């Protein structure tokens, strides 16, 4: 039941793990599999909306009340402007995959081979991954925040080639596609903000393998998904009123020993997150 919800969550974030993505050797039916009708359209309408003339307002005065194009307060009055924060982070994660089971399919010579890999069979079940995280947060009630996050990370792996009948497969890399909700608080201290946070989400874990049947070699993906609950602590340094640089560290409580740390650059729609005091 939990996996169903996780699949729905990841699908909503556009991160749903697909089935095996191997393109089979000798797959010659690509031309006949196109069942979607194509509708060709041509832009032969001369007075399309793109060519409409836009009126450009020409300002005639700088004095309030005489200005044609601008209203008083425009450009500085932030009443009603939400305290949004857009962030991009580079992070390193000590990820553990030993408890995972990957499922996928490989196609060779128009034959489908089921793949089942256990994370514990990898030579490195404790991985050091590098990745990127993007997130958008909204500060609410002055000191609390709620946001969404998507992340990608990857690492090379190795493992002994496994033979399953005629199929030989060798793991090559693991990728993580994650997404979820981040709840947090911001405690302003001078030009710093201390942020205790909680990430609630999930991730798709994709194991890339090289599969081989005879002389036919393919790159094949098998996948699985899991929940992530990660308390974090971050310290943001406002290098400018609208820009912050953070360091953060967190641990996934569902996978003991998994640690995530990184550096994050944030752009703020409101200076210093619009905290009423600092």
């Amino acid at each position, binding site marked *: 039941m939990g996996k169903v919800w996780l699949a729905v969550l990841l699908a909503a974030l556009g991160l749903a793990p697909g089935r095996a993505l191997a393109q089979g050797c000798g797959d010659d039916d690509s031309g006949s599999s196109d069942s979607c009708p194509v509708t060709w359209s041509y832009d032969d309408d001369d007075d399309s909306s793109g060519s409409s003339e836009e009126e450009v307002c020409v300002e005639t005065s700088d004095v309030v009340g005489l200005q044609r194009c601008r209203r008083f307060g425009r450009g500085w009055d932030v009443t009603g402007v939400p305290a949004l924060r857009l962030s991009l982070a580079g992070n390193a994660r000590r990820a553990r995959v030993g408890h995972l089971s990957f499922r996928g399919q490989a196609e060779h010579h128009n034959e489908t081979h089921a793949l089942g890999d256990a994370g514990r069979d990898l030579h490195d079940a404790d991985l050091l991954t590098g990745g990127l995280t993007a997130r958008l947060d909204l500060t609410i009630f002055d000191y609390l925040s709620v946001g969404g996050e998507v992340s990608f990370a990857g690492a090379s792996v190795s493992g002994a080639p496994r033979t399953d009948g005629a199929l030989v497969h060798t793991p090559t890399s693991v990728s993580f596609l994650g997404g979820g909700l981040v709840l947090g608080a911001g405690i302003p201290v001078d030009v710093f903000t201390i942020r205790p946070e909680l990430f609630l989400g999930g991730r798709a874990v994709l194991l890339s393998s090289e599969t081989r049947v005879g002389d036919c070699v393919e790159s094949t993906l098998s996948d699985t998904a899991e929940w992530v609950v990660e308390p974090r602590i971050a310290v943001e340094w*406002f290098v400018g009123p609208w820009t912050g640089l953070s360091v953060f560290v967190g641990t996934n409580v569902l996978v003991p020993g998994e640690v995530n740390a990184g550096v994050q650059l944030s752009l703020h729609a409101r200076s210093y997150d619009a905290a009423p005091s600092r």
Partner: protein
Amino acid sequence: MRASKGRLAVCASFLAAAWLVGCGGGYGGMVSEPGALRLSDACLDLEVTPRPFDAGLPRPMPVLGLRIGNRCAHPVAVDLRALEVTADVGGRLAPLRPYDPRGELGAGLLDGRATMEERIAWEPPVTAEHVSRVCVRFGGAPACLDLEG
């Protein structure tokens, strides 16, 4: 060795971008124009500068450029309607009211370390034919500004 140099370059670019973006804004103090009036309160610096008369105004009235900088790191409400502006009319201080035919003047919120600028005409009483000196009260005692010379 080559990979570590690449990572170093990425980190350096990241920090440089942060520094450039971060130092690109934020009010840190005002460099006053010559002849400007400078007033301050707990968070805000106000600079009042005489500006030329605008031919679009219905009658002669002083035009003042108002520039406000927020020294605090939190938003501050700014209400220019509450600004006390008076004119020296025959030795007596007569209150001026902001020229606001569209009723757009109102309270606004100025973000922390942000600045704002507005140019407002101030209507003298109909009995005042000519205003050569205005006084502005912003928190403390009023300070005056000669509009000519």
